[in-house]
């Protein structure tokens, strides 16, 4: 019974073990274990692990070594690496531990399929420590009595393991505590180091895979000391202007070590250090006098020290201390030059003496004043003039001549050597030759070839060329034995004018000038081009030179680029001196785009585009066309005139038909009321009688056209019926009313002579003595003196003014050579609104047609077929055959309308009529 319960209990335990493989102690018993337990393995070595099953599990779980499988993490180890040692032990072998990982587990396939973990181990793979190398130690002085030895070494490769480094040191009979590095593995510091005893120092590196020891370093720590730099350094000036005294204190006691020193110094503001020769400071000391310094100059000093025998390390440089040497008298005279202004008078100079302030190392102190002495060399009798100046220029008014100017600078110690400048009357000596420039970094080198004569000095003037301001001259002096100087402060992309004067012992050479750039760039803009003249196939382009500020270099050439809209661009290179260029071979009547490019050695800039269109015709082409055309036209006109002249009779016949002379007509004798008046040929006579009280004016109004519509003819019919009771309007009959303007008609009426002189001739006019409107006029028939021809055109114009609707009536009265003027021009009669018979008895046979200024009254014209018109028609007895007008009664000259010839109506002048002004 008990044995059965124990079997059950064991089985339960097995399940627990399988389910809890990590529980290897306590109540839970594992079914197996791995040896070695959590090994540390060298990287790259081989490794064999054994999984040993407990015997108890074999009995209860039917678990055997053959069922064991090995896993690294969750990766199955190939079975080729397994080996079943016996039924409870299985081994696995790894030839290279680099393929290992944690954990390595021993598992079993229960019942052939179910994988259950038996045991697992942690595998640590790494490297044994390498031998530390390059051990070196420095003893740092921390304070006066404190020294710390710091040792560093190369720890070697990374071991992937926890590796301990220890710095060990010992005396032969005393071992000191180890120095354990903190946070690092390559250095450690030992305090309280003791000097004068050889100390053995080494490094030990230890980890799970081994231990390594560096080479032993045996050293007396006093030989590897880096002392503190000297303290309390002070600089004092001595009696001499070239000496400064340095004093300091040493941190390290004489008993510990003796020191040697380095002293360095520099001028304040400069960066280069100078050093006192080391042999001068190779022994223990606390002061030193530095000599060979510049007067009145600020120096900065710094000191360092090390063990006198050279073993150990130099200390850091001490902090800088500054001292100033005392003044000395100036070492040289100031460079002097002059600018002579002769603009006021060539014989009287304004001399601007200019000189440069001495450099600090030349002035050796503060310059208090300059002493200028001017001696007229051309006149020995002239006294020497002296001036004391505090600035660096002085202006003198001197007559033209040769002068010697002497300049001395003075400081608190004494005067400088004198600088002498000879100002000759003229710069007649030889100039320099082959003046040239060459940029060198940020300086502009100016070189020249010396003249043949001995030159004392050269003066190099330069100034920035500007279009907006004057050239401000800068200058410098070069000794006579040099043939080139570097100009400083030259700006790039700026044009400089450089002039070199040679100074001789007895005069001065004329200046040679050259323009130069330190550095060139492309122009800041291109030229703006425009056309000066555009032709058919050429265009003249103009542009302005770029200002010197815009050039940024020497303009080597201009390039003109032009093209049509769709054409290729044409490029023309132009000399930079030109400002005009003619483009030729252009296409006529074409839009061109042109732009211009200015080029320096370093690039080009293009100006704005400009467009122009070439002309369609060339110069003279229009004249060549127009003139012949005009000439041809004139020729045609001339021929026409000649033709007309030759055919004038024929033309006259058609245009100016012969008008019968009424004075020769029978009606002259016929009119009994005014027999005398037939003798009047002159209107003056007529006017003199004062019988003309009214002048009818024929007004041509465009509005009448409308009023002459055919519908308006009916009222005219009524008027004709009422012809015996006319309104008394006098009418200018036909004639001038029809063929001339109203003004002309008035003139004709007013001045008979004038009328006679006119070319246009009104053969007849009817002077109607008529009252206005209902007044009874005195009717006078008079022959017109006018010679105005009766032009068709005038008739037409009259027709227009009168309206086309009067055609019918005109046809009723006139007929020209049997031609039937039907419906075209009926000017005269359209204006005949009322036919007034002042006295039917007196005016039998005459029709007085008055064109009233109030033309709004409808005219009854054109009613040819109206039988009532017959009476009116009969009034106008116009001789068609003889071209005469024969006024008469209807009874006497019953003419049909068709038979009426074209004739002219007499002008009506009515008394009391309207007189146009």
């Amino acid at each position, binding site marked *: 019974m008990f044995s059965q319960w124990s079997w059950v209990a064991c089985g339960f335990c097995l399940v627990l073990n399988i389910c809890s493989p990590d529980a290897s102690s306590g109540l839970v018993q594992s079914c197996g274990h791995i040896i070695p337990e959590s090994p540390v393995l060298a990287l790259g070595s081989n490794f064999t692990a054994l999984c040993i099953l407990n015997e108890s599990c074999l009995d209860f779980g039917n678990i055997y070594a053959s069922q064991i499988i090995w896993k690294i993490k969750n990766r199955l180890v190939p079975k080729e690496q397994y080996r079943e040692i016996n039924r409870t032990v299985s081994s696995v072998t790894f030839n290279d531990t680099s393929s290992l990982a944690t954990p390595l587990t021993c598992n079993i396939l229960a019942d052939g399929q179910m994988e259950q973990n038996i045991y697992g181990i942690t595998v640590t793979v790494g490297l044994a420590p390498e031998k530390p190398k390059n051990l070196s130690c420095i003893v740092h002085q921390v304070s006066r009595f404190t020294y710390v030895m710091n040792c560093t070494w190369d720890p070697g490769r990374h071991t992937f393991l926890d590796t301990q480094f220890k710095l060990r040191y010992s005396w032969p009979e*005393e071992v000191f505590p180890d120095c354990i590095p903190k946070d690092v593995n390559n250095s450690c510091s030992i305090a309280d180091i003791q000097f*004068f*005893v050889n100390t053995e120092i080494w490094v030990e590196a230890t980890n799970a895979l081994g231990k390594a020891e560096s080479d032993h370093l045996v050293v007396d720590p006093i030989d590897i000391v880096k002392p503190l730099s000297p303290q309390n350094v002070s600089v004092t000036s001595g009696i001499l202007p070239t000496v400064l005294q340095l004093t300091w204190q040493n941190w390290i006691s004489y008993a510990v070590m003796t020191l040697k020193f380095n002293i360095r110094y520099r001028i304040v503001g400069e960066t280069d250090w100078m050093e006192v020769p080391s042999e001068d400071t190779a022994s223990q000391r606390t002061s030193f006098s530095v000599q060979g310094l510049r007067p009145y100059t600020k120096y900065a000093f710094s000191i360092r020290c090390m063990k006198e025998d050279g073993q150990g390390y130099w200390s850091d440089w001490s902090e800088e201390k500054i001292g100033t040497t005392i003044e000395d008298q100036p070492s040289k005279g100031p460079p002097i030059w002059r600018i002579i202004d002769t603009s006021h008078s060539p014989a009287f100079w304004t001399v601007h003496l200019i000189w440069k302030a001495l450099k600090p190392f030349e002035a050796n102190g503060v310059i208090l004043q300059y002493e200028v002495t001017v001696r007229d060399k051309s006149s020995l009798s002239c006294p020497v003039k002296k001036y004391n100046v505090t600035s660096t220029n002085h202006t003198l008014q001197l007559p033209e001549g040769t002068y010697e100017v002497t300049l001395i600078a003075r400081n608190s110690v004494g005067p400088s050597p004198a600088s002498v400048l000879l100002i000759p009357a003229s710069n007649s000596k030889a100039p320099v030759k082959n003046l040239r420039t060459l940029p060198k970094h940020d300086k502009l080198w100016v070189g020249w070839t010396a003249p043949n004569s001995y030159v004392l000095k050269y003066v190099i003037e330069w100034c920035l060329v500007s279009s907006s301001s004057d050239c401000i001259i800068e200058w410098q002096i070069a000794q006579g034995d040099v043939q080139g100087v570097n100009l400083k402060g030259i700006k790039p992309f700026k044009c400089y004018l450089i002039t070199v004067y040679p100074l001789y012992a007895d005069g001065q050479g004329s200046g040679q000038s050259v323009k130069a750039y330190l550095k060139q760039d492309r122009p800041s803009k291109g030229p703006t081009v425009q056309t000066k003249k555009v032709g058919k196939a050429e265009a003249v382009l103009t542009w302005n030179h770029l200002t010197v500020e815009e050039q940024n270099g020497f303009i080597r050439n201009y390039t003109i680029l032009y093209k049509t809209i769709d054409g290729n661009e044409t490029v023309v290179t132009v000399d930079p001196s030109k400002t005009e260029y003619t483009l030729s071979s252009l296409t006529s009547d074409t839009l061109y785009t042109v732009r211009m490019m200015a080029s320096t050695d370093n690039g080009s800039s293009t100006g704005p585009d400009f467009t122009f269109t070439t002309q369609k015709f060339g110069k003279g082409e229009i004249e060549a066309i127009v003139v012949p055309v005009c000439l041809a036209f004139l020729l045609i006109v001339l021929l026409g005139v000649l033709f007309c002249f030759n055919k004038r009779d024929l033309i006259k016949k058609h245009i100016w038909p012969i008008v019968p002379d009424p004075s020769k007509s029978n009606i002259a004798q016929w009119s009994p009321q005014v027999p005398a008046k037939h003798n009047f040929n002159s209107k003056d006579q007529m006017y003199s009688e004062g019988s003309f009280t009214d002048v009818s004016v024929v007004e041509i109004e465009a509005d009448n056209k409308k009023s002459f519509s055919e519908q308006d003819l009916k009222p005219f019919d009524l008027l004709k019926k009422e012809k015996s009771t006319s309104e008394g309007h006098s009418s200018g009959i036909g004639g001038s009313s029809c063929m001339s303007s109203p003004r002309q008609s008035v003139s004709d009426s007013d001045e008979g002579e004038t009328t006679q002189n006119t070319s246009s001739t009104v053969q007849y006019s009817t002077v109607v003595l008529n009252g206005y409107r209902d007044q009874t006029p005195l009717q006078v028939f008079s022959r017109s003196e006018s010679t105005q021809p009766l032009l068709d055109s005038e008739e037409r114009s009259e027709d227009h003014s009168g309206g086309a609707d009067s055609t019918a009536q005109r046809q009723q009265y006139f007929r020209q050579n049997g031609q039937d003027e039907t419906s075209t021009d009926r000017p005269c009669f359209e204006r005949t609104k009322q036919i007034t018979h002042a006295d039917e008895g007196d005016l039998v046979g005459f029709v007085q047609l008055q064109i009233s200024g109030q033309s709004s009254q409808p005219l009854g014209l054109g009613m040819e077929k109206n039988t009532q018109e017959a009476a009116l028609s009969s009034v106008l007895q116009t001789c068609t055959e003889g071209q005469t007008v024969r006024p008469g009664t209807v009874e006497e000259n019953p003419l049909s309308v068709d038979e009426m010839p074209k004739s002219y109506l007499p002008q009506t002048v009515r008394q009391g009529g309207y007189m146009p002004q």
Partner: protein
Amino acid sequence: MAAADSPSAALRRDLCSRGIRLAGKMRADVADLLDAYVEQQGLDPSASVAAMDGVPLAAVERWDEQTGTQRLLENLAAYRAFRALLAQMLEEQREQLGEADAGLGRALAAVLLQVSAFAYHLEELLRLESRGIPGEEEEEEEDGPPPLPRLSLFEQKLRGLGVLRELAQWALRSVRDLRQLAKPSPAPGTAPGLADSP
């Protein structure tokens, strides 16, 4: 004695040289330590301290008649004694002040190290002299173990003052002794340094 240009002679010179400098530094450090000790212990710097047992005296008669080996042996015995005395002082110092005055303790420890180092120098020189180095135990057996009387605090301070003062004197003497030893031998077989005086 080795020849002047032999490696042993060079080593001897080097040992003497560094011994001299060590003794000089030790003297300077002991002087500084003495000032600090007097101040820290509240003693009168001008107080005279009678000779105490166990503290070797630097003064010696006929100093210039001593041989080199004799000088070395006397120095070695003295510094071994000082090493023990200083160790005892350091212990007492720690007991009295704990970590309150670590500076004084460090200075004492530094001087103790220098004393040890100097003793090592002396031993090396004795080896070069082909002389056996007396063992400390043997020496102690001969002289008997140093008495370790239980002293009052004030007595401890006074003893410390006396130890340091005597050590300073010994440092000075050691410098002179080693300079004597460093001088080249006038003739083979002659004891070095007999004719020189510091």
